[in-house]
């Protein structure tokens, strides 16, 4: 059993028990996690150190904490939220048509609705059309989580999700892509 961290201890600054992103002092501004100096950044700790192709396991994130084990430090607690907590544990997307490249656009006035911080961040980002993959990358949320939250926001009428009718693009679209790529200089 470990006692609560000493706020004067420079190694373990007394981080409040909130997600780093809620500590942002500028809630209306662009999403930018504000972190106390010396703590690993939100992205580094949760995602950033992962090498491409190499799944990594974070003991704090995935390991089972048992009674009697030392509790993680406050700074770790705040950054090791399991991803699907944000979706109340749901792992199935509401809409299988929402893919990585699906374009999302927020409704005017959606920001005034009562939303969770993550949903608010999505609505804020999507003032201009954005793909689900970009939302996921910019908010550093797992794609699966992003997809579910986008589906929720769409169901609540806060987001326009532009689902394509056909699975495979028509020849005219492909020809336009070919012409567009050809015009790129090397």
């Amino acid at each position: 059993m470990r006692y609560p961290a000493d706020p004067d201890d420079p190694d373990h600054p007394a981080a409040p028990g909130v997600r780093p992103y809620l500590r942002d002092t500028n809630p209306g501004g662009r999403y930018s996690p504000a972190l106390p100096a010396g703590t690993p950044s939100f992205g580094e700790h949760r995602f950033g150190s992962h090498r491409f192709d190499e799944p990594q396991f974070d003991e704090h994130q995935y390991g089972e904490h048992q009674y009697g084990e030392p509790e993680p430090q406050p700074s770790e607690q705040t950054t090791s939220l399991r991803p699907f907590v944000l979706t109340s544990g749901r792992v199935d997307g509401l809409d299988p048509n929402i893919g990585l490249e699906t374009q999302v656009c927020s409704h005017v006035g959606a920001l005034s609705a009562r939303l969770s911080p993550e949903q608010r961040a999505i609505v804020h980002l999507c003032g201009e059309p954005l793909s689900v993959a970009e939302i996921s990358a910019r908010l550093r949320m797992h794609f699966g989580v992003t997809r579910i939250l986008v589906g929720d926001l769409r169901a609540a009428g806060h987001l326009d999700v532009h689902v394509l009718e056909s699975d495979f693009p028509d020849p005219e679209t492909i020809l336009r892509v070919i012409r567009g790529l050809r015009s790129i200089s090397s």
Partner: protein
Amino acid sequence: MDFDPYHPDRAVGTARVPDAPQRPTPPVPVKIIVAGGFGVGKTTTVGAISEISPLTTEAEMTMEGIGVDDPGQASGKTTTTIAMDFGCVTIDQTLKLYLFGTPGQSRFAFMWDDLVRGALGALVVVDTTRIDDCYPAVDYFERAGLPFVVGVNTFNGQLGYNLDEVRWALAVRQDVPILTFDARFRGSVRDALLVVLDQALDKAMKMRSS
């Protein structure tokens, strides 16, 4: 509304419609998959042509991964995280090409169904010194009926084997193009993607005529 130089209604040479809708119409997204083993140059490929520096999105393996990457009873690990790099090229205001770089190993195949849905085609990046890294991706794309092209990344113009030997090793159909390219150069990546698009066009024409 603030001035937005990229707003479609402000494009050069078109009259701006008064009382334009507040939200621009999103472009139609199309995507090409860049697959291959670890360190063969997928991210370099995406970065060479993307107008944004490649972003990374994380995907979570949950229930779908059981049996594919079974972590075993004792570990208590129920999730695996993989990273996927992507970039985009704006063709015009109504069309945007996305490139998704994805790990080629079979243990990540759980998410390929998501990736492949609606994709135009795939560029399988191959390093001839580790050619077997791309086998699962080639297998998957063949089964899924996705047009694909094998691009041998010539690190500094060096090619350990000629393309016939690569074709023999991969045992792909004769109509699957195998080409060399250099992932660091935009023109080279562009030409490789154009071959993928040619394949996609063939498929789209066949789909239309049938």
